[in-house]
């Protein structure tokens, strides 16, 4: 099942125009307009409650919105099989005693009845990619937070989507896990568009194409060098955050901002 959009370059993956989302009248995000190239890696940053998750959900067509979202020229609901979503880990129900293999197989088999050998092969490959294939028969709820996150990452890539939408995928990861996942992202972004919510951009600075600073509205959208400035970060978080620059690379000091 090869991808229809693989190899297509410089096509815009996502076009968002005047996107506004309200929850019972409360405006969570307002008038967001951006275009995202394919393939590319886009980081979304902003303080808690800024509307980052809301933005991702609108891209996925999971919540009602005003404005337009078009993905490969179509509405999100029409291209669902090309999207992979990794929700914030807190949203998952650990009461269900699934095995690791069940978790990764779910997206492949939830719409048919039997399990094909081909599905098992793909699930194993996805777990291999995140270094969790040895846990094939383990219970998901018995894993550590970081291991769970790796398994969920595998579940997100198992359907081989063209666009990956990841909500804080490193929140429970230790340094080693984080580096392994970043390595994987480096490979994936060669042919996929990755949209990723992060509180700490530093480990991804080298492979980030664009950054969105979001706080209800888009404060800035551009390359890392353009967007990650002390002025912008102060506007975003409301406190002074030093930025160190080395050529095109810059680092946010005290990266993990939960301001």
């Amino acid at each position, binding site marked *: 099942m090869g991808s229809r959009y693989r190899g297509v370059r410089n096509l815009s993956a996502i076009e968002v125009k005047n996107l506004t989302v309200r929850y019972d009248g409360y405006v969570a995000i307002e008038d967001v307009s951006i275009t995202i190239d394919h393939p590319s890696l886009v980081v979304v940053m902003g303080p808690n409650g800024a509307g980052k998750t809301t933005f991702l959900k609108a891209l996925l067509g999971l919540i009602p919105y005003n404005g337009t979202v078009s993905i490969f020229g179509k509405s999100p609901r029409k291209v669902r099989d090309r999207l992979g979503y990794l929700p914030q880990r807190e949203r998952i129900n650990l009461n269900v005693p699934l095995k690791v293999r069940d978790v990764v197989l779910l997206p492949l088999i*939830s719409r048919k009845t039997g399990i094909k050998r081909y599905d098992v092969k793909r699930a194993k490959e996805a777990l291999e990619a995140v270094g969790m294939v040895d846990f094939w028969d383990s219970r998901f709820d018995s894993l550590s937070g970081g291991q769970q996150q790796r398994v969920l990452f595998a*579940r997100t890539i198992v359907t081989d989507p063209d666009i990956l939408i990841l909500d804080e995928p490193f929140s429970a990861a230790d340094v080693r896990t984080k580096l392994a996942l970043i390595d994987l992202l480096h490979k994936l972004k060669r042919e996929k568009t990755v949209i990723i919510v992060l509180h700490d951009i530093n480990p991804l600075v080298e492979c980030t194409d664009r950054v969105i600073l979001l706080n209800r509205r888009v404060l800035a959208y551009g390359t890392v060098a353009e967007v990650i400035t002390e002025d912008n970060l102060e506007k975003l978080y409301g406190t002074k955050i030093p930025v160190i620059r080395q050529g095109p690379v810059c680092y946010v000091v005290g990266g993990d901002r939960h301001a």
Partner: protein
Amino acid sequence: MLDILLIRALIAMVLIAVVSATIGSFSVFRGSTFFVSGIAHGALAGASLGIFISLNFFGVDPLLIALLFSVFFAVIIGYASHRSENVDIAIGVMFAFSMSIAVLFLSMIREYASVAWGLIIGDVLLLTASDMILLSVSVVTVVILFFVFYRRLLFVIFDPESAEALGLHVLRYETLLFVLIAVGVVALLKCVGAILVYALLIVPAASSRRLFGSVEGTIAGAFIISLISGLGGVYLSIYLNVAPSALAGLIAAIIYSISLFR
């Protein structure tokens, strides 16, 4: 004559164990066990309305009204749970409303209250042929739908947002699960009564979840624990001459306490 009643009781206990294994396990996974006792009392309210109608207006099987009531509640709660995180309040309101309705009609049919009493505590040793047909048809329907939608239901319980993102209609499947629970509960009503539905539907599944872990293990274990409780209850009741559902509930609760020490 006792023989046929006993055989019916034993068959009923097997069917109840099937409901516990399937619907009971998934209710435990979803953390919807309060919903189960809420629905049981909703069914009771429907049944007492049914008894009231057949005494005063026209003949109707109270269990049919019970089924309508509980399915109606299931759809409402399914919708409410989709809209807000905490549905326990909505279920509590349904619970209170149901009990008010039940008490209202029971107080109006005082002289026939024993009929209603049968639905509150149940009597598995008094099942009629038509009760058996209703029970078997509902259990078979529930089990078929359960296994057809097994993986989709699991996905929706485990991670509704990702399921929705992959194109599963979460509201539809959650409502389906709630309706299956409602049908399962009504099937049990005549056998074990509204009060003890929880004891035979949820307690075995909860113990099994603790003892056996995996999804398949929980389902198989819940079947066995519910069967042991149900058959044990019937068997002991013949010697002790007390209500079998009460004994079954006690056995299930004892097994649960043992599972806590694992």
